[in-house]
């Protein structure tokens, strides 16, 4: 069941990018397995926040699978009149807890939700997916320090560590950094559903950091090998058919 969800989300991503003729596919494909694994552990009162908002196609694909939006809506993303844009919008999209897109803002918002829950004695974990590139932002580290200082046991930070900042300032040694900031930090293969699931199950009195080693464009060979060219490119008809078949066969 969970095996097929990641394939379905990958196909939704390719399908939407093909029909809408745009989209950040490599960045979205990188977090598909994280979302799929999260789906098997989240409770109704939990939240998933995509701080790296440009990976939204994966999240929209997940929302399609949860029945919150339709494939037709996803194919129209970014078009006039669509409620789905290039970044998740809380005011428009059911299942989006906070609007992201401006990097470094989703995590502190997640910290605020987790802190409010702790204050009000409410259940529910907050899972927040941040990017390694996003970790260039100082507000990420501010938010982590606050989370540790307030012992937010209900916060799980997942770093989509896909080497996205090799062009300018790589966020290196993410595990060490998270550990030294005081989080209970571990690292995992971000495409291994069983390993991810085990990490999500383990908790601590400290906020949790899971550094998920991932590959941009994961699941489509052409994208994995040419991430820069495909950063914001859409597939043509031939590529669309080829990529869809490749996802099915993997």
């Amino acid at each position: 069941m969970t095996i097929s969800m990641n394939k379905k989300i990958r196909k939704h991503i390719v399908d939407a990018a093909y029909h809408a003729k745009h989209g950040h596919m490599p960045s979205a494909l990188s977090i598909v397995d994280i979302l799929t694994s999260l789906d098997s552990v989240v409770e109704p009162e939990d939240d998933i926040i995509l701080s790296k908002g440009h990976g939204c196609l994966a999240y929209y694909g997940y929302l399609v699978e949860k029945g919150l939006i339709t494939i037709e809506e996803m194919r129209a993303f970014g078009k006039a009149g669509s409620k789905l844009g290039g970044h998740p919008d809380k005011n428009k999209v059911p299942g989006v807890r906070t609007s992201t897109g401006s990097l470094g803002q989703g995590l502190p918002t997640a910290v605020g939700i987790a802190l409010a829950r702790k204050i009000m004695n409410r259940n529910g974990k907050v899972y927040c997916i941040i990017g390694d590139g996003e970790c260039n932002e100082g507000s990420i580290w501010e938010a982590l320090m606050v989370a540790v200082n307030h012992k937010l046991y209900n916060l799980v930070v997942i770093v989509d560590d896909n080497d996205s900042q090799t062009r300018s300032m790589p966020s290196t040694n993410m595990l060490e950094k998270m550990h030294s900031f005081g989080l209970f930090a571990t690292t995992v293969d971000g495409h291994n559903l069983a390993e991810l699931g085990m990490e999500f199950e383990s908790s601590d009195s400290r906020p949790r950091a899971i550094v998920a080693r991932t590959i941009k464009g994961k699941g489509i060979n052409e994208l994995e090998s040419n991430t820069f060219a495909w950063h914001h490119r859409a597939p043509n008809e031939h590529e669309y058919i080829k990529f869809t078949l490749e996802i099915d066969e993997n």
Partner: protein
Amino acid sequence: MRTEFANICLNVVKNDPKAVVFLGDISHFLLRDAQNAAPDRVHNIGICEQAMVNIAAGASLEGMRPIIHTIAPFLVERAYEQIKVGIGYQQTEVTIITVGGSYDYSDLGCTHHCYSNIALMRTIPNMDVYEPGTSIEFRSLFEQTWGNGRSKYFRLSAKVHSQNLLVVPEEINVVRKSTNNKYVFVTGHLLDSVVSVPDVGVIYVPTLSRMSHNSIGTINKLIDHNTKLYSVENHFINGGLGDYISEVLNRGVHRIGINRQFVTEYGTYDDMLKSAGLDLESITNKISND
């Protein structure tokens, strides 16, 4: 006004279980009573204003009513984009309360001054903007708006005026009618200076984001095509009170404020006013000799 801020916080955390106060490492000593009253809902978050804004937005998304507080430039200027996205765009019920006015920290230099805050907050849709001129006005505006579900900004200063006015959100106060067909709009403590200018009409404006039809009607009954209109504000003339009145009335206003320059001198608060051309003598000359 800062003492009143502490009283208000104490009161609100006692009476509203949804109230939570986040401090950017400012006023924490003053707020010790509030902290004792509700230790889990008064937090000195740290020197991290950008995160503090989004943390408050998140707490609001979870159903709480956060107040965030520090010195004006560190919040509304430094964390402007966080306020835009986290508070304004998402329409979170966050109350921003800053101290320092324009240059209360007169000897600390430009880093601690802020005379762009009204303009910045006014450009954020969904944000209600208030500049109370006394502690009583602050309490009154706060109590009338608390729990209304809106994003709010209160600009506080240590300097207050001496008039006793009943202020209501979105309403103006006609402090005095004109005998020379000049009307001066004013906000904050400069009301005292404007009242000292002879013959002019004085209209006090504590809300800077939205004006009721009733108040617009009141102004339009007082003025005609020949009336000269002025605005006096302890703020850049761009985007502040003068622009606001001009927009509401759809006509030109002679704007008296800080004209796109930094106030670079040190000294007392009054030295700052003089340097900015907002001391009593300068204001009187600009209006009376016009």
